[in-house]
């Protein structure tokens, strides 16, 4: 029990439970299967990118260029499938391939020049997004193929609400689950995944990790191509959800994603973070946003409430950690 109380995830989980109780008490419509599945569907897009961001944060980096990567992957994918023919496998292949290449560029810049990752990604965010605007002229793509639209409506299982309207577990959520499982396997069971924590734990000077026999370049390449992979997948998922491709609709959401991951216990200093925590962070923000409307809170208060919840959750956890440290010091002195 005490070990459980030391974990940051426990606090986020308690916040999710508390919030669910409050919202449900005010509006019983909240705790329905339909609303739950709707939330899962709509937060898949941010959730997929959050997994990529988690991997970057664990390795001690910060990447904000992923929204531009997702946008470029999405746009090129949309141009190809509307202009020529295609299928859903091709759509994902194109977006993921672009994600991997752009991720590789990030990794190369970070490794060869040894520049702080956030600076590199601010630069590449602008270059990737800027070039897309230059070549696309900012043109929106409104009409995506029918098969693309149909795929978006695919459900793993289907239920019906009281009005006879179908709902269910969306294919989009299934894609998110796939990304989660993939990341979990890599982080837990591969040497590469374990070495991520070691690299992230030693801060800006990677010397100790290198002396321990870790190939830093390989780790960086993995981290940023995996980020690129999740961005590519997220780009297609966003197009599936919205059915319109606008070059400016994803860029600008970087901080929402990073906030969710940090809220879930990942450290901006590197070396810490779990998938469970990240998912809880994503859920907390999604439930909060959904719940505010259901609780009939005036929209002017949204940002204030969201900020307060982030602060409360993060400081409760920090307070607990400090108490643990003090206890440890007291034991040593005694």
């Amino acid at each position: 029990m005490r070990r459980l109380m030391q974990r940051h995830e426990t606090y986020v989980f308690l916040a999710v439970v508390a919030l669910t109780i409050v919202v449900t008490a005010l509006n019983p419509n909240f705790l329905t299967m339909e609303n739950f599945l709707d939330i899962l569907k709509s937060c898949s897009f941010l959730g997929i990118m959050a997994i990529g961001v988690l991997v970057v944060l664990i390795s001690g980096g910060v990447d904000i260029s992923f929204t531009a990567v997702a946008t470029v992957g999405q746009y090129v994918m949309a141009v190809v499938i509307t202009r020529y023919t295609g299928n859903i496998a091709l759509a994902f292949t194109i977006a993921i391939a672009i994600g991997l290449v752009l991720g590789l560029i990030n990794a190369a810049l970070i490794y060869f020049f040894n520049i702080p990752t956030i600076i590199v990604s601010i630069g590449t965010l602008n270059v990737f997004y800027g070039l897309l605007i230059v070549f696309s002229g900012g043109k929106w793509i409104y009409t995506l193929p029918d098969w693309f639209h149909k795929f978006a409506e695919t459900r793993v299982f289907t239920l019906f609400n009281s009005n006879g309207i179908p709902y269910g577990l969306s294919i989009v959520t299934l894609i998110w689950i796939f990304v989660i499982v993939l990341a979990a396997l890599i982080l837990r069971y591969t040497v590469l995944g374990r070495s991520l924590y070691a690299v992230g734990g030693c801060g800006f000077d990677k010397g100790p990790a290198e002396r321990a026999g870790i190939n830093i370049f390989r780790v960086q390449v993995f981290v940023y191509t995996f980020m690129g992979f999740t961005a590519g997948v997220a780009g297609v998922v966003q197009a599936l959800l919205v059915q319109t491709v606008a070059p400016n609709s994803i860029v600008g959401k970087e901080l929402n994603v990073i906030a969710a991951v940090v809220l879930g216990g990942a450290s901006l200093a590197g070396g810490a973070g779990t998938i469970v925590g990240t998912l809880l962070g994503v859920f907390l923000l999604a439930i909060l946003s959904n719940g505010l409307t259901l609780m009939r809170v005036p929209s002017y208060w949204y940002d204030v409430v969201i900020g307060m919840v982030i602060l409360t959750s993060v400081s409760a956890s920090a307070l607990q950690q400090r108490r643990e440290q003090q206890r440890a010091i007291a034991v040593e002195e005694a």
Partner: protein
Amino acid sequence: MKKGIVVWAALALLMLTPALLFAKAEAEDDVYEIATVVKITGIPWFNRMEVGVNRAAEELGVNSYQIGPADADPAQQVRMVEDLISKGVDAICVTPNDATALEPVFNRAREQGIIIITHESPDQRGKDYDIELIDNENFGRHHWDMLAEQMGGSGQYAIFVGSLTVPLHNLWADVGLEYAATQYPDMELVTTRIPCGEDQELSKQRTLELLQAYPDLKGIVGFGSLGPPGAAQALREKGLIDEVAVVGTVLPAHAAQYLKDGSMDHGILWDPGDAGYAMTWVALQLLEGKEIVNGMNVPGLGTVVLDGDVIKVDAMIDITGANADDFGF
């Protein structure tokens, strides 16, 4: 280390690309040079405006063109106007990001005899004229008339705006609410205006939430071109196309599919291409020494109503499933 050189070379090439792309021949000197500066480049709204600016270049025989920053950044816009002053253009037409930030540089331009025309900024200081293609009061009220018609004059509804700080969206909402209070007393606003209209995904999500929070919801009026399509998507998903009316500002080509299947009911807008053309046209009249007077005719747009230094032309358009494909934007 060799790899380092390759990466540097690649970087240098990347940086050169924009310079190569933007390098173009200098324009001739014997025609008027009229530059249009927009809030942000690369979005459909201002792409459409550029079509109008280019049409003006052809039809009016002037050297008119459009530029704008990559983000809606007031400081960058000020810098662009400064550059145009140094370049010595004859007139500058601006859709301001920030009216106050532009005032000093507008004054400097006019000291040098450069004409300043603005759009969507009637209270702008330092301008020669501002031109509006809609009457904002009328525009706001028209939304409520259309919403009332679709809702049968009574029931619960919600408002979407782009953000709580977009001046025009909130002005239209203010005007409409005031109008509804006397004209449509049976229509009930369920919650404060929701800031999601520039994000289709968020608008869809908010609509789903509203449907749960207010099961009797009968209508949504949306300002910001992505609000109504997002709402329409949510209604499609929940099979409520006939239950809830959606009215608002949209780009015709984008809204066409929603208007056709009835998930959206009515769109209202003006053509930004007309605005681009009209600003250049007004600038040319002033450069040629003509005076702007009441009742003047802007080619293809209609008659001018002059209100101080604000030129009003009523060019509001109604967008329905039947005509959405005909606008060309």
